[in-house]
């Protein structure tokens, strides 16, 4: 104390005096924050996957039997110029049959009796992210010559979108519970620290330290521990996800490696969660233990 120390300096000093306590606090917080981080990563990846599904091929335009591939190309060029359209792909009847055969898998023998290809030429239309095909756009497409049928988005996608809001609420509720868990963990860690340093605190009390003088180093210590734990937790989550994320196809065209990736926003969010939990848990932890003491 050769120079005047602020609360941060005093927090650092008391942390250095008790490395064992720091080890226990940081390791338990790392595990808790790793669970939060894995949860955040999964939520974010699912959200992105859902967005990819929703902005996939949302329109299928079947051309009339008489409409030639050339007509299909003309129509594709025209539709590609529409502002809401991201991409148009022309699927010739031969390609459509090949796809169908692949989708049938072991049952593709069913197609062996066919003498002609019954499938029409078609356009797959991908919309800009966030846009959906409405009846107006379907009507515009139907009015074009050579168009036999316009199939707008798939019914399951509607159901997914309807359920999305409920899922988001559930995810937020679960996330909040996890956050509360971390706050309680920090609270108990701070109480443990207060208990371990009760003799020091008694000395501070006797020499006339204010409640804030004794209290703030504990809060800052909790924040520093939580920050360190958030960095370790990010590394832990990254390592675990990298270990689990082998390329594997999932239903709906998703890939397991996409669902188990670690977005750069997750470590940042985890740091934010850690700081907030550190402040709240720190204040709650010292709140009861270090109330200003008057005569008993």
């Amino acid at each position, binding site marked *: *104390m050769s120079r005047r120390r602020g609360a941060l300096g005093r927090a650092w000093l008391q942390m250095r005096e008790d490395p064992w306590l720091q080890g226990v606090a940081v390791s338990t917080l790392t595990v808790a924050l790793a669970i939060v981080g894995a949860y955040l990563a999964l939520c974010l990846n699912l959200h992105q996957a859902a967005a990819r599904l929703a902005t996939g091929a949302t329109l299928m335009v079947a051309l009339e039997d008489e409409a030639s591939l050339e007509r299909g190309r003309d129509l594709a060029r025209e539709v590609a110029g529409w502002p809401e359209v991201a991409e148009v792909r022309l699927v010739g009847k031969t390609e459509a049959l090949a796809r169908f055969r692949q989708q049938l898998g072991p049952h593709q023998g069913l197609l062996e009796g066919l003498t002609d290809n019954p499938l029409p030429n078609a356009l797959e239309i991908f919309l800009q992210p966030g846009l959906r095909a409405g009846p107006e756009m379907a009507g515009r497409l139907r009015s074009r010559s050579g168009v036999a049928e316009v199939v707008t988005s798939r019914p399951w996608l509607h159901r997914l979108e309807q359920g999305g809001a409920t899922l988001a609420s559930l995810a937020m509720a679960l996330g909040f519970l996890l956050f509360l868990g971390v706050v309680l963990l920090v609270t108990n860690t701070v109480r443990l620290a207060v208990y371990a340093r009760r003799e020091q605190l*008694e000395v501070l009390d006797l020499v*006339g330290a*204010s409640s804030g003088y004794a209290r703030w180093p504990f809060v800052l210590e909790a924040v520093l521990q939580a920050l360190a734990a958030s960095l370790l937790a990010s590394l832990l989550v990254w390592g675990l996800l990298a270990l689990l994320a082998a390329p594997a196809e999932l239903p709906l065209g998703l890939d397991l490696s996409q669902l188990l990736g670690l977005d750069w926003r997750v470590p940042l969010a985890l740091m934010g969660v850690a700081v907030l939990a550190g402040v709240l848990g720190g204040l709650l932890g010292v709140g009861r233990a270090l109330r200003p003491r*008057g*005569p008993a």
Partner: protein
Amino acid sequence: MVLLTRVSKRYSGRPHPALEDVSLHVPPGQFVYLTGPSGAGKTTLLRLLFAAEAPSSGLVRVGGADLGRISSRQVPLLRRKVGVIFQDFKLMPLRSVFENVALALHVAGRGPNGLNGRVSEMLAQVGLADKAQVRAGELSGGEQQRVAVARALVGRPPLLLADEPTGNLDPGTATEVMRLLLQAHAQGSTILVATHDPKLLDLVEGARVVHLQAGRLLEHP
């Protein structure tokens, strides 16, 4: 400086009061010995004076403040004006001697300019200048008590309370600690020393002696 008027202190679950109907007036600058056997109420009386306890009844005033009505936020302010020396030192063993002594000034918001010089001066007075950077826990009992004395005196408190300050010390070190208290007294501090050691009474000429017996006060002439 100190005024107790018909003060009693009872603890729940104990049949007899720790203090009963105690009245005492200590004017500024006086040196007072508080004597009596163990359990007579000496420590309780001192604890009332730095607001570690509240009286069950009666009035306790220190430096004009009524400690029976003091708010918990005002307690730290009072304690910065009252130096306290304990038999078990109450030091931070992992902090250096310098840090332990500086603590009393630091909690009061003293900046480094005044603080460093004053702490070094105080350590020189108690003969520990060469051990400023040693951890308090590594010192002998006598040295630790001198650190405690330095911490109590560094803020030049108008009132100094010492609870059995020589209880754990050999006679030579005890005399040295008493010399430091006398020095503080000479500089104007009011001093109350609780002790059950009659040999200490001869060390301070002209000191007032107040005797406590089973919580009651008997003044010696």
